């Protein structure tokens, strides 16, 4: 991981306020290497046509390029059948698909649906609303003071034998990595269907189904792994997908349409109504190639180095409150911080003026933030193209901010903003 990798990302050469652009909002979206942008451009310039329809050359080329990505994804997450890979528009749609189709068909009144308190809204609200529609019980697995899953809470919810457990691989707020394999094994024994939100997890480490244990569904987005926005993946076990009713109706998802009823196409097309984001899927294919070339194990090792480094540096700053565990083990390079006396938004603007892009706010995780009585934090999330020098810039800016926002002696001069 070095300067050569940074050269793959043209955007990293930008300047903000005449300072180098330090992009630390990778948990929101990653940047795209030139290869991804080129692959999408090539589709539009050379073989733009709709897929699965035409008999002409270009349509066949587009279909081949599009469908080849399904195979790449199957290999990426180590599953045998491409029929289990469904293209959606993002993690959010993937989870909504499972809640609307599988959930609607299988959850009954009085059943238990379980989530955790660290879920992103995308893996919380669809289940909460499903529970409401079905008069099912909605249970939230609580956290320890350092914001990991609380073992007592896991036992409590396990005893309720939930019909569905929806859980994230790692938290987008704290970077805590959940022990999915052991949880999945335990919940499978009480009959739960396990839905994993890998929106964050997919970018940090080798996420393959065999390593996740007996999970049933996996959702993630292209744009967190250097692919374009607008494309997501849902993987599901074929036996479950076969039995599930369609989620949306329209073109491509049918085999026969009669006046009074219709028949559904086979997997995965049954769940892919309408023209997909063809260029986006092709771009995702290039992103996966890029990830495989770098090596996910190598990425994970490098990111672990960044995580340890930042944790070590932050530890020395008295005024910085770091959310979540302070050990690098089972933690991704995502750091939510609060500084005494400095509001998260003021801190984010302060960092932005120095070229450092971070996210400030509730990170789409109200249930977690409310439980911590913390309306907003500043979050810095690193990727493999970030450097230790950038980590230093971030940590130093945190120190500066506290000095800057500390109570200043009042003076009648310097009257504020000059427009």
């Amino acid at each position, binding site marked *: 991981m070095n300067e050569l990798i940074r050269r793959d990302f043209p955007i990293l050469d930008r300047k903000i306020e005449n300072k180098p652009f330090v992009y630390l909002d990778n948990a929101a979206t990653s940047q795209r290497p030139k290869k991804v942008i080129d692959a999408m451009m090539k589709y539009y310039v050379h073989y733009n046509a709709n897929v699965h329809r035409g008999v002409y050359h270009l349509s066949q080329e587009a279909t081949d390029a599009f469908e080849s990505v399904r195979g790449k994804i199957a290999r990426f997450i180590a599953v045998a059948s491409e029929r289990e890979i469904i293209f959606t528009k993002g993690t959010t749609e993937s989870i909504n698909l499972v809640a609307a189709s599988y959930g609607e068909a299988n959850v009954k009144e009085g059943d238990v649906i379980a989530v955790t308190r660290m879920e992103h809204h995308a893996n919380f609200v669809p289940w909460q609303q499903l529970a409401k529609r079905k008069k099912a019980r909605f249970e939230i697995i609580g956290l320890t003071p350092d914001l990991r899953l609380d073992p007592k809470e896991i036992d409590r919810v396990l005893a309720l034998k939930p019909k569905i457990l929806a859980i994230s691989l790692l938290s987008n707020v704290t970077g805590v990595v959940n022990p999915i394999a052991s949880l999945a094994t335990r919940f499978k024994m009480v009959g739960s269907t396990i839905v994993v939100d890998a929106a964050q997890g997919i970018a940090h480490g080798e996420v393959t189904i065999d390593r996740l244990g007996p999970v049933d569904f996996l959702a993630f987005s292209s744009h967190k792994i250097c692919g374009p926005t607008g494309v997501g993946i849902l993987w599901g076990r074929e036996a479950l997908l076969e039995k599930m009713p369609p989620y949306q109706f329209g073109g491509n998802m049918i085999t026969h349409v009669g006046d009074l009823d219709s028949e559904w196409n086979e997997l995965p097309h049954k769940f892919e109504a309408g023209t997909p984001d063809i260029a986006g899927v092709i771009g995702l294919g290039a992103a996966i190639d890029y990830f495989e070339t770098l090596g996910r194990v190598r990425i994970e090792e490098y990111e672990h180095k960044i995580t340890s480094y930042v944790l070590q540096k932050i530890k020395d700053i008295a005024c910085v409150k770091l959310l979540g565990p302070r050990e690098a083990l089972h933690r991704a390079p995502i750091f939510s911080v609060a500084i005494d006396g400095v509001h998260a938004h003021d801190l984010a603007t302060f960092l932005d*003026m120095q070229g450092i892009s971070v996210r*400030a706010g*509730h990170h789409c995780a109200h249930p977690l933030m409310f439980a911590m009585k913390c309306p907003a934090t500043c979050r810095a999330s690193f990727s493999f193209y970030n450097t230790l020098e950038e980590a230093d810039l971030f940590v130093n800016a945190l120190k500066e901010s506290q000095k800057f926002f500390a109570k200043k002696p009042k003076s009648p001069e*310097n009257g504020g*903003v000059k427009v």
Partner: protein
Amino acid sequence: MSYRDVFGEILADHHESPRNYGEIQGAITEEGYNPLCGDKVKMFLKLSENAEHTVEACKFEGEGCSICMASASILTERIQGQPAAKVNELIEAFREKMQGKEDVAGLPADDADDDLVALYGIKRFPVRIKCVLLAWTTLKKAINKVPESAGETA
């Protein structure tokens, strides 16, 4: 523009020593919340019984970023004793100004020696404009709870 220009002494002063912070018993109240960043304000407004519905007192409570709190402080300071309809006009003019409209009437000039001017510069940070405006839009809702006081711009 440096960071010190944005968070200058005037805003820092209003943030650290907010004017009119606290509640008013029996006042008209309205709460404003920005779900995006968690800023919260509660405005307390007391209007006189006369035809003009003069602001007898206006205070606020809340929590949020320095810009949101300073803006609430500056707002409450300048409307004491003003007729409600005039306050509504001021809020509307300030909203237009912050949203980028040129030559808005009824506001201090850009170089005026006036605390309100300190907020103008936040226009440079579009996502922070809502921090500036939260107290203002919330106060407008409070005024509009007394329909006859709201004036033409209500």
